[in-house]
């Protein structure tokens, strides 16, 4: 026994060890091999350059520039002076500590971004100093370089992907940039290209030793696609200028193609604000501005009552349904009595009026009566309402248009069912009479309004509005954007309505904003609106709205302008529309008086009203927005003041 003890123990231990080796090297070997690869194979991503964005004339709008990220590999930092590093990085000590903790949680062995997107100037002084902190280094990366200081909301921006995005699309890894809004988001896949990678084996310090498997598993990057968009950079810039100190939006569409020539939401900001090291601060300033809402794209997401421009649709439906003729005259007794003591008011003008003058004078009584006939043509009000609804929605109203930008709202065009479920009692045409003049239950987005105008300009059809024109110089070939969408109105019915819209410029509500040598057709709108002020619903100064297209016989541009609280249509919206039409068609401005007015007037006083505690008047006859101070006026005329106004 005593001779065998050590002998048997050695045997037992030896066999146990061999068993363990079989377990490690055969049974679970594959798992351990995977861990070994995680350990030792370093994947270095090779990012292709993001595609450029050009305007319709080939003018560069968005390019790229080199930026620098401060990176950390937590495992390699060792002990360091947090205070000193925070000073060097110009960062709060507690914020830096938080960042480092997040990085450690993500991975101790892999690099995390501590400060993203330093510019060349910010980077230079860091470069030398940072070497004293092992584990920290600077990584080059490609960032956007904006050639324009406007159009931020339509161009969109790129931002580091968050965990949600990584989980949802395994293309992305921590630290990748991706489009977050606008064109950058819509065409992210095209713009970004496909990143490639190179694999290296690395040692336990993370240093690359040699290429993994002789580079056989490496992947070459695919370059990003250059986009040509339908925007006209010059028109866009001019429009942004005109919109300074106003809130609202502009959409201009080329009716023959559905291409979006200009898309403005105001207030807007310089896209470069969302880059560099103040980028987080600026993004927060924009997102948190719940008063001016620079983050909301008003032309895509804002749902407004369309007001008088909607009357032309009712005229068209009236003709199509045969309930009136272009020649029929309707009486207006400073309004229209539609039952009992109820009356829809109207302003002073000659009476009775036929269609052309009715549109030109924007007579409420005229359209109330036409609308009533349309609804009452149905066997029930509900059926009449459904017919009306189908006509209206054929103009692209009441639903998402299907344009290629990532945000939108459907708006609202009520049908019979809408009122039946809303009212317990039986309802009749007068119940919904506000729809006749584009108030009431009707709601549209400005881009729908512009598209509706394009459909009128085309005499009965529209192309789905879109922003993409070419990819890598090749014109796009998407049937969605090259197929005509026909309205339910026959082409012949458009002429008398278009005559009326032309009359708006010749003798009607827009006669003071005529552009020499261009036959413009338009329609003003003055939209009642309400806001909650200190918890109480209160009527505000009317929105100024205008739609137009030109030239009358060969339309090159259809436009919708929406100015919040600009009062009547021709005070602000029509002026802007006229100038943009002139700019687009002539390439120069002759109505400098209109330009001067817009450049010298601010609506900020109007917007300030509801924020103050003082009681205030609305719809004041004289525009109080004139900027008298010479210095402020100069500042006001600079596009740069966009930034100052928004991010003070």
């Amino acid at each position, binding site marked *: 026994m005593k001779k065998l*003890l050590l002998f048997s123990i050695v045997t037992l231990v030896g066999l146990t060890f061999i068993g363990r080796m079989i377990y490690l090297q055969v049974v679970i070997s594959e798992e351990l091999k995977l861990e070994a690869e995680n350990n030792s194979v370093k994947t270095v991503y090779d990012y292709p350059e993001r595609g450029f964005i050009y305007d319709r004339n080939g003018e560069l709008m968005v390019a790229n520039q080199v930026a620098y990220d401060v990176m950390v590999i937590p495992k390699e930092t060792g002990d360091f002076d947090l205070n000193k590093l925070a000073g060097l990085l110009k960062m709060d000590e507690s914020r830096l500590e938080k960042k480092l903790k997040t990085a450690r949680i993500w991975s101790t062995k892999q690099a995390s971004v501590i400060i993203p997107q330093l510019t060349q100037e910010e980077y230079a002084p860091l470069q030398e100093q940072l070497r004293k902190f092992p584990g920290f280094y600077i990584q080059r990366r490609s960032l956007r370089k904006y050639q324009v200081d406007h159009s931020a909301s339509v161009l969109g921006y790129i931002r580091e992907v968050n965990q949600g995005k990584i989980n949802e699309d395994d293309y992305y890894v921590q630290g990748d940039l991706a489009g977050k809004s606008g064109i950058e988001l819509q065409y992210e896949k095209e713009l970004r290209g496909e990143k490639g990678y190179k694999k290296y084996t690395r040692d336990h310090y993370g240093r690359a030793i040699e290429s993994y498997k002789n580079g056989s598993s490496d992947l070459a990057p695919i370059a990003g696609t250059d986009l040509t968009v339908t925007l006209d950079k010059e028109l866009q810039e001019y429009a942004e200028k005109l919109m300074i100190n106003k809130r609202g939006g502009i959409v201009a569409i080329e009716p023959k193609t559905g291409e979006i020539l200009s898309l403005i939401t105001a207030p807007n900001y310089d896209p470069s604000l969302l880059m560099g090291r103040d980028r987080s601060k600026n993004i927060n300033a924009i997102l948190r501005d719940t008063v001016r809402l620079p983050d909301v794209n008003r032309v895509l997401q804002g749902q407004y009552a369309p007001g008088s421009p909607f009357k032309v649709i009712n005229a068209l439906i009236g003709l199509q349904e045969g309930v009136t003729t272009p020649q029929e005259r309707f009486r207006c007794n400073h309004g229209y009595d539609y039952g009992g003591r109820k009356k829809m008011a109207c302003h002073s003008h000659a009476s009775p009026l036929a269609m052309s003058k009715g549109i030109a004078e924007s007579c409420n009584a005229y359209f109330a009566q036409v609308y009533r006939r349309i609804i009452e043509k149905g066997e029930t009000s509900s059926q009449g309402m459904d017919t009306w609804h189908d006509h209206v929605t054929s103009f692209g109203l009441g639903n998402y248009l299907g344009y290629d930008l990532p945000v939108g709202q459907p708006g609202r065009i009520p049908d019979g069912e809408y009122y039946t479920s809303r009212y317990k009692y039986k309802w009749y045409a007068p119940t919904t009479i506000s729809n006749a003049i584009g108030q009431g239950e009707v709601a549209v987005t400005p881009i729908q309004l512009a598209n509706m105008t394009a459909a009128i300009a085309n005499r009965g059809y529209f192309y789905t509005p879109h922003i993409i024109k070419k990819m890598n110089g090749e014109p796009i070939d998407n049937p969605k954007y090259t197929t005509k969408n026909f309205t339910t109105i026959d082409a012949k019915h458009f002429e008398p309505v278009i005559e009326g819209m032309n009359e708006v410029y010749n003798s009607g509500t827009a006669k003071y904003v005529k552009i020499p040598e261009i036959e413009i057709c338009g329609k003003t709108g003055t939209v009642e609106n309400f806001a909650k002020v200190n918890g109480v619903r209160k009527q505000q100064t009317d929105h100024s709205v205008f739609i137009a297209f030109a030239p009358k016989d060969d339309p090159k541009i259809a436009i919708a302008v929406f100015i919040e609280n600009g009062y009547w249509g021709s005070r602000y919206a029509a002026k802007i529309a006229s100038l943009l039409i002139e700019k687009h068609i002539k390439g120069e401005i002759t109505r400098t008086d209109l330009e001067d007015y817009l450049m010298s007037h601010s609506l900020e006083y109007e917007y300030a009203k509801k924020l103050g505690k003082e009681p205030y008047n609305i719809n004041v006859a004289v525009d109080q927005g004139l900027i008298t101070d010479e210095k402020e006026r100069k500042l006001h005329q600079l596009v740069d003041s966009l930034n100052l106004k928004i991010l003070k």
Partner: protein
Amino acid sequence: MGIGDRPKYDIAAILIYTALVFIGLFSIYSAAPVLEYTSITDINQVYGKQFLFIGVCALLIIIILAIEVKFYEQFAGLIYVVSMLSLAGLYIFGKEVNGAVSWYPIGSFTFQPSEFAKFATALAVAKFLSQLNVSLKNVRDFMIVAGIIALPALLIVPQPDPGSALIYTAFFFALHREGLSLWYLSLGIIALALFLAALVINIWWIILIIVVVVAIIYLLSRKRKHNKRLPKPRIYLYVIATFICIAYTLSTSYIFNNILEDRHRNRIDIVLGRVQDDAGIGYNINQSMIAIGNGGWAGKPLEEATQTRGGYVPEQHTDFVFSAIGEVSGLLGTSITILLFMFLIYRIIIMAERQRNQFARIYGYGVAGIFFLHFFVNVGMVIGLLPTVGIPLPFMSYGGSGLMGFTILLFIFIKLDAHRMSYDH
């Protein structure tokens, strides 16, 4: 030396030794922290140094085998005293490396006396026990032997190098061969089992288990009353045993939780699976297992042995050299290495058993025990079965003192064995 007697050196043991040394050299070569390999004799690299140490060992072997065989027995006492002095001297002249004062600086090299204390102690134990009037059954003699073994361990523990001190428990096998009851080993195992159980299970359960087990043993032993060779079971002895067990469990658990340092506690916790910590203290073991697993069946060519090349396993050319073998030569290499160690120890036991001389036999068992314990603790640690204890793998881990110490340990025995026919008192 008897007339006409030629020494018969044990070829098997020498071959196994040579194989292990060169597998070790190759593993150190693959585990070297270099970006570009140079010649294996490049003295600036660890493998070049190990190559040099092997050369020194060859010289040492010649000297050991050339010395008159009786020298080792006659000078055992002196060698032991010198060795103990060298250990004690560390506290005055020692150099601190990695937090332990275990080395003397000699030029650009360092010398680790604890590696030499093993053969010195083995010689001393063999010398003392082989005296005619000495018996382990005599309490005084037992205490002296225990003292000879404990002295170097006690000198080494505070360096601190608890791993090297642990090796001295290997002498149990030599003592057992000379008649020490297995009870001592059983006591040790019970002590260890209670200690580990206290960490994993609630202490009240353990107390309950102790009481139940002791009660069962008592009841069983009462049935054997007719067996007159055994002492009569006395109830109070069982009660005392029970209390000792409980007191021991409580006190070790207290020591573990309140007196041991975190780093020691963590090592044990990780092996017991009480904590999972692959980034911290568990990093070594985890990385070591990854490297071994990455080797698979047949191992990987050097350029694909990413873990070893990348230096992921700390101490991969010293204590963790077995992991480099695992990755570079796979299951094939690791099994061969394990088998070589088994055969070496078997061979030494066989050689010890054929000694006519008690001194040589005790020394042989000492050698076998020491190799076994190193093999067991080191490989067990590298493959994740035992806590991290920093001791080298004999003949394979990088280090001159270690390689020389083990070489001397083995070749003194080969020398004694070669003269077994003529060598007696």
